């Protein structure tokens, strides 16, 4: 069994779990004007930006001149909180790993610096942290995690895959403890690219709404500390949740679009239920991928309809709170899921007014309190057809 003993998160809705929870409870979205990212799209789009400059993030981390780029600092802050939350005092006491996901890596800085660097070639801060794995190496080193360190890059399902790998390493007694999740910072490259694919909404996104126009980009990082049963018992810990199920499958349909009937999503959800040994009617809530694009929401709705049929549980996408945080999305949403279980609350799918015409599914649109939540399904589907689903259960 794999236990979640710590959570850490930083996103547009808060710099830690406590602030995140406040925002969720007050239905306060983090999506708004772009303040820190210097992009020509600044005034035309909204995003879920972490409301701290690079310098401020360094200050929050208690560092100075670290040469840690934005993705790394976000990762470090969330990891720090997760480790503290898990009560980890000495990282070396157990076999510990760090598996992190990112798509942006150091692009947020190299895109600003590379022209000058090519012309003048003096060493510049951040130039050597472009590499996607740099953030994982830097953060693991910072916390003294050495037993297993790697980086996963599978687009929007990356953090879920990091979580899955962590669970497998614990279940197979390769590690006792593993910090898993992801981090992505906003950058011009991503903005420009998603704009080119015409899947950005210039206004606040509307997941699962019939008039949805696309996604809002977001940034952030989140990590879970997963521990084995042995460690939990030995240290007399009270886990926050159990990671009871996980599944991954390839949609094998298109590089960036999901199949109309959500085959990949269906397969991933199915596998997660099998691993958790749960029938669909045992799921109490689904934290959907729900990006707000025409394609994803239809495809995901079709998959959910096919699996759950008459037993459709309440579901919501929380991306109208945080934006789509890309490689960090699955871990950010895993933390939100765990908060949901702890608080017995289902967080709403904000900005929803009109049901989708091609389905009879309606998300939860207002805060639901005092709900008995035993099992939650969390979906994350990435470009490249990479579909992942996780199931978290009450301890």
């Amino acid at each position, binding site marked *: 069994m794999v236990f979640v003993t710590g959570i850490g998160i930083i996103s547009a809705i808060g710099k830690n779990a406590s602030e995140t929870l406040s925002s969720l409870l007050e239905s306060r979205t983090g999506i708004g004007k772009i303040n820190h990212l210097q992009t020509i799209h600044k005034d035309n789009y909204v995003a879920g930006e972490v409301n701290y400059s690079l310098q401020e993030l360094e200050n929050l981390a208690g560092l100075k001149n670290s040469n840690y780029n934005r993705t790394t600092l976000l990762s470090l802050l969330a990891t720090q909180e997760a480790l503290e939350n898990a009560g980890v005092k000495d990282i070396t006491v157990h076999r510990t790993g760090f598996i992190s996901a990112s798509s942006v*890596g150091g692009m947020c800085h190299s895109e600003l610096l590379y022209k000058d660097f090519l012309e003048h070639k003096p060493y510049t801060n951040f130039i050597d942290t472009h590499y996607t794995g740099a953030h994982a190496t830097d953060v693991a080193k910072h916390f003294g995690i050495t037993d297993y360190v*790697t980086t996963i890059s599978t687009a929007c399902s990356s953090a879920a895959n990091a979580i899955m790998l962590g669970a497998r390493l614990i279940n197979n007694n390769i590690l006792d403890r593993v910090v898993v999740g992801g981090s992505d910072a906003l950058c011009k490259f991503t903005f420009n690219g998603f704009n080119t694919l015409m899947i950005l909404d210039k206004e606040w996104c509307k997941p699962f709404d019939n008039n949805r126009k696309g996604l809002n980009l977001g940034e952030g990082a989140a990590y879970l500390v997963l521990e084995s049963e042995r460690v939990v018992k030995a240290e007399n810990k009270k886990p926050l949740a159990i990671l009871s199920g996980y599944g991954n*499958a390839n949609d*094998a*349909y*298109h*590089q960036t679009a999901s199949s109309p009937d959500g085959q990949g999503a269906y397969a991933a959800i199915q596998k997660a239920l099998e691993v958790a040994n749960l029938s669909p009617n045992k799921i109490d809530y689904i934290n959907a991928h729900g990006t707000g694009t025409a394609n994803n929401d239809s495809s995901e709705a079709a998959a959910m309809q096919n699996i759950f049929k008459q037993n459709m549980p309440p579901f919501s996408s929380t991306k109208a709170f945080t934006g789509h945080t890309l490689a960090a999305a699955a871990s950010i949403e895993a933390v939100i899921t765990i908060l949901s279980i702890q608080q017995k609350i289902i967080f709403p799918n904000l900005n929803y007014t009109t049901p989708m015409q091609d389905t009879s599914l309606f998300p939860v649109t207002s805060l639901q309190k005092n709900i008995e939540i035993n099992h939650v399904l969390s979906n994350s589907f990435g470009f490249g057809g990479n579909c992942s689903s996780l199931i978290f259960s009450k301890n």
Partner: protein
Amino acid sequence: MSYILSHTKIKNNCLWHDGKLIAQSEDTLNYTGFLEEAYKFLNLSYPKFFKMDALSKLGILCAEPILANKNSSQFSKEKTAIVLSNSNSSLQTDIAYSKTMSDFPSPSLFVYTLPNIVTGEISIKHKITGENAFFIEPAFNADLLHNYTELLLQESDAVLCGWLNTDEKACEGFLYFVAKQPANDEKKINFIKHNPNSITQLYTN
């Protein structure tokens, strides 16, 4: 016990399958030219190939001799996993895309600015719907791949694994197919045992 049933390699304008050289181009040809020549050598009829970036082309070419083979095709597509890795992520395409950003950004280039799109392309062509992952590592890591593949084989029947890397001057592809039992008992002796040593040997030879 798990075995490596088949492997391919692309390096220095050469394509090898199970240790045999099956395609080769002049040294002077740049690697993108070689990838297109290899497409012709393999007699592939797949127009989508020409829309792909070099990383995806590399993956499709390395995967083809393996997946078109009886040894691998007998495994269920739903239970075949794909685990790939590299150090450069999608850097070459990131650079190409960034050059288009100043006037007419190219959507078809942006599609390939993620390293795992190649797993998507292989999955689409061969209708493989099992698990898939992509690791970013500073160098080829046989231990990581071996370890992860063995974990996957607890639930999957077979895994296509390897390393696909491109940079400005060269590309490097090494894919191999691992399964729990040899496909054909008579030929068992031809199959290589799956362990980090044998993987490293195949990679470096």
